């Protein structure tokens, strides 16, 4: 960790090949999510859509936004944003899903 901070302005960048591989993965996942959307999987369609989106977002966060190599603090900050959003959705869903009709 210390060696990466010795660089005056943040961590060493990932290699060009890594950048391009991430892009390839993102575009592949895009194709996958569009493809599965047209196959009837029942409730699994929604899960696949959201699941693939989460993976894509994680790729961008980890590599392009450099959470992998930058200070661990930034990882905590990024996760807390999503965690709080999850709290908002989960607890208000707890109301909507259990309300008597």
């Amino acid at each position, binding site marked *: 960790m210390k060696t990466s*901070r010795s660089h*005056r*302005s*943040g961590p*060493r*960048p*990932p290699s*060009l090949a890594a*950048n*391009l591989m*991430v*892009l390839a993965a*993102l*575009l592949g996942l*895009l194709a996958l*999510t*569009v493809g599965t*959307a*047209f*196959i*009837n*999987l029942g409730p699994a*369609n*929604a899960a696949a*859509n*959201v699941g*693939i*989106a989460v993976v*894509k*977002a994680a790729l*961008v*966060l980890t*590599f*392009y*936004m450099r959470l992998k190599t*930058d*200070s661990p*603090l*930034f990882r905590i*900050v*990024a996760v*807390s*944003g*999503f965690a*709080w*959003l999850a709290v*908002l*959705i989960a607890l*208000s*869903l707890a109301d*909507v*899903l259990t309300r008597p009709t």
Partner: protein
Amino acid sequence: MNATPTAEQFDDPVQQREAATLGMWAFITTEILFFGVLFAAYTLCRVRFPQAFAAGSRHTDVILGTAETAVLLISSCLVAVAVREVQLGGQRIATWLIGLTAALGVTFLTMHGFEYVSEYHEGLIPAIRYLQTGPLSAPMQIFFCLYYFITGFHGLHVSIGVAVLLVMAKKTHRGDFNQDYHTPLEMTALYWHLVDIVWIFVFPLIYLIGRVG
């Protein structure tokens, strides 16, 4: 100018860079929650009106939507490579890459503009031109309200991003950034990636539900 300007409240450039990056991440967190309200509203309304949301989604243009997603993903990669170039000292290539990123942002907005126009002709815009009828037309308006709020707010972010990217391209061209100092460019890239991430979630939720069954 290039002698790594450090603001007077900081001890050294390392501290300054850390403060700026942490500030940017905290800002990104607030942005996640800004968009999050819309996504939460989407979730709660979709749970109540699954059919209307599926029907509304079928009115959107999945081909344009996919193309827009690809454009944003590629632009994200370009700006990431641009930051890398500057860190390694390649300012000329970086300028081009940043310019190209901004151009892709404009492409995205243009494509979305076409979507809005065709939706206007179809009569899908609540409060302005809404011509849908039938039992699902009322809750489908909720879907379209959310669609316009989310894509509109996202489009606003893309526009701001394009403007900032153009400024950064100019600064990179002028040689303001080098191996030692490029924090503003790094922050702009973070912002652009955030805009990308938001769209990564918008795309399946708006365009892909109800394509089958």
